[in-house]
C-alpha cells in the first residue's frame, strides 16, 4: 500500500442529508464525459456510470424506515488499491492534486483494477460507444471517446482542471491556487441541492477544507486504509455507520 501525498488535494464533500438522489449529477457526468447511452441500462452489471447514486436504507420496517442517497464518484484514494495492480501503468496517482489518472490508450483491459477497487468505481467498456445519429455532435471536447475493451472511471472532470490551469497561466495566477469556481466537476456544478462541495482539501480558502473537519464527516471504508479524497457528511448516525464495516461489539 503506497501513500501518495500532494500539496494540492482535490476532493469532494458530499452532504448526504442534502442528496435527494435525483440523478442530475449522473446525467451531467455522462454528458460531460461523453459516455454513450445504452439501449438497456437496467442491467446494472453492464452499465457505465462514473458517478453512481446508491440508495441506502436503515433496514427498519415501516414507519421507522429511513432512506438516504449516496453518490459515488471515484474516491481518488490516497492509497489507491487500483494503481499498484495495473500491469501497464495505465492508471497512476502521480499528479499534483492527487487525482487518480486513467489513460485509455494505454489500458489493455485486464480489469485487475476493477477487481481491486472495493468501491466499484471502475468500469469496463463492454461495448463501443454508439450515439444515436447526430448526437455525437454534442460530444464535449473534454474527454476522448473510449473504444470497447478499456477501463474507465471518474476523473474529477480532469480536463476542467487543465483548462483552469491554462486560464491561470493566461491571467497570471498561480496554477496551483486559482479561484475554486474555475474548477468544478460537472456533477458538483449540476447538483440542484448543492450536496456536492468540491475544492482543494488542503486549501483553507476552500469550503471543503472546513467541511472535512466536521464531526459529521466520514469516508467510505476508511479502515481498509484507502484514504479517499472524497468525504461524506451526514447528521444521521445510521448513515455514517454504513460508511464502513463494523463488528457487533463496535456498535456505537
Amino acid at each position, binding site marked *: *500500500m*503506497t501513500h501518495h501525498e500532494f500539496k494540492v488535494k482535490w476532493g469532494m464533500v458530499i452532504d448526504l442529508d442534502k442528496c435527494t438522489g435525483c440523478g442530475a449529477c449522473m446525467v451531467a457526468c455522462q454528458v460531460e464525459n461523453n459516455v454513450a447511452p445504452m439501449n438497456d441500462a437496467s*442491467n*446494472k*452489471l*453492464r*452499465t457505465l456510470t462514473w458517478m453512481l447514486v*446508491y*440508495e*441506502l*436504507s436503515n433496514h427498519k420496517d415501516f414507519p421507522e424506515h429511513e432512506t438516504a442517497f*449516496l453518490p459515488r464518484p471515484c474516491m481518488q484514494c490516497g492509497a489507491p*488499491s487500483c494503481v*499498484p*495492480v*495495473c*500491469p*501497464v*501503468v*495505465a492508471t497512476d496517482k502521480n499528479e499534483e492534486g492527487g487525482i487518480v489518472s486513467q489513460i485509455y490508450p*494505454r*489500458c*489493455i*483491459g*485486464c*480489469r*485487475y483494477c*476493477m*477487481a*481491486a*477497487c*472495493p*468501491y*466499484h468505481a471502475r*468500469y*469496463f*467498456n*463492454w*461495448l*463501443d460507444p454508439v450515439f444515436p445519429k447526430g448526437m455525437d455532435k454534442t460530444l464535449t471536447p473534454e474527454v476522448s471517446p473510449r*473504444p*470497447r*475493451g*478499456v*477501463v474507465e472511471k471518474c476523473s474529477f472532470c480532469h480536463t476542467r482542471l487543465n483548462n483552469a490551469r491554462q486560464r491561470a497561466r493566461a491571467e497570471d495566477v498561480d496554477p496551483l491556487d486559482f479561484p475554486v469556481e474555475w474548477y468544478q466537476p460537472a456533477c458538483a456544478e449540476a447538483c440542484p441541492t448543492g450536496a456536492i462541495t468540491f475544492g482543494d482539501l488542503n486549501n483553507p480558502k476552500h469550503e471543503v477544507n472546513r467541511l472535512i473537519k466536521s464531526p459529521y464527516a466520514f469516508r*467510505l*471504508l476508511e*479502515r*481498509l*486504509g*484507502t484514504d479517499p479524497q472524497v468525504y461524506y457528511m451526514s447528521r444521521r448516525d445510521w448513515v455514517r455507520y*454504513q*460508511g*464502513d*464495516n*463494523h*463488528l*457487533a461489539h*463496535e456498535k456505537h
Partner: protein
Amino acid sequence: MDQKLIPDGLTRCSFGRYLLWLAFIGVFILWGAYAATIIFMKGLTVTGLDNYFGFGLWITFDLAVIALGAGAFFTGFLKYILQIDQLKNIVNLAVIVGFICYSGAMLVLTLDIGQPLRAWFGYWHPNVHSMLTEVIFCITCYCMVLIIEFIPTILEQKQLNKIPFLHYLAHNMHTHMALFAGLGTFLSTFHQGSLGGMYGVLFGRPYAFREGFFIWPWTFFLFILSAVAAGPQFTVLVATFMEKLTGKKLVDFRVKVLMGKIGGTMLCLYMFFKLIDTWYWAAGILPQMGFTFDQMFYQVIYGKWLLWTELIVCGVLPAIMLMIPSMRKQPFFLYLAGILTCTGITINRYVFTVQTIALPVMPFDKWEIYIPNWAEWAPSVMIVAYGFLVLSLSYRYLPVFPQERKLNS
C-alpha cells in the same frame, strides 16, 4: 500410413482410428476457435463477465491449469537439480503437460484482455509494482523455457533424429537441461507466487487480502506450495489417464508412488500453512477490516461448504492418504488423493477469483452472482481439447515414456 514416424518398437492404434480421434478433438477446438473469433470481433460483451466479475471462468481456469502444470517445473527441479533419477521416467510427460497448461493459459489470456492488440504493453510499459507484471514476465519466460525443454523430446522424433545436426542439438540440450530446469524452477516459483500475490495484495477485498513477508503477501507462498503439491499429482493422473485410454502401461507404478509421496509431502506442508493462514485470516485480518468470518459466505453458491471441502476433503484427507505408505501404494488411494488434491486447488483458485469479487465490501452493496456463458466455456474447452491434441500427437510420434517398451513387453 504414418508407421515411419512412430518410435521404433512401439505399437499404436491404426491411423484411421487415430484420425477419428483427432477429428473428435477437432470439434471442440473448432467450437472454441469460433467463440474466440466472435470474441475478437465483438469484444467481451459476448461473455458472461460484467462490472462486478471482471475476472471469471477464464482466470479461474488459467490459475488452475497453471497450478496443475506446476508438475513440470517441480519434477524438473527434482530430476535435474536434486538428481532424483527415477523421475526421468515421467519428466517428459511433466514437461509436455506443463507446456500445454502454460501455452493454453496464455492463449486464454489474450482472449481475456479487452485490447488484445495491446497485449505487448505488458512488456514495454511494465509497472514494476504490479504482481500481474511479474506474472506476465515470468509466464512468458517460463513458457519459453518449457518450449526449450520440450524441443529435445521433439527432436528425438525418429525422422528428425536422423538429421545429425538435430540429433546433436537434442543431445546437447539434454546435457544442459539442468540449467533450464533451474531457470524454469526460479521463474515458475516466482510466478506461481505472483499469481497468489495478485490476490493477496487486494487490500480492498477482505476475502483475498493477506499480510505477508517482505513485499509478498502470504498467498504468494501458499500458491507456490499448493502448486507443487498438485502439479506432480496431476502429472500422475494424466499418465494414468493415458494408460487407461491406450490400454498400455506407460509409467512404472513405483514412479507414480514416488510422485505421490513428493506431492503428499508438499501437500502436508501446504495444508499446515494454509490452515494457519485461514485461521489468522478469520481471527485477525477480517475483524481488523470490520468483517466477520460468516460475512465471507453467501447462500449455497458462495457457501462455507466450499471452504470446508477445499480444506478438509480436498486438503487434509488426501494429505493423510499420501503420507501413509500403505495407502499411497494402493492405486485407488493414490489416484483418489490426486483427484482430491487437484479439485481442492481448483476450488481454491475459484474462490480466490470469484468469491473475492462477489463479496460486497461497501455495507450497502450486495452479493452478485456470476454464471459463465458459452463464450467463456468454449475457449476453455478448446484449451482442454488442445491439451488432448498435443498429448495425442506427442504420445504417437515422440518417445515420451522411456519405460513404455519395457513395461509392455
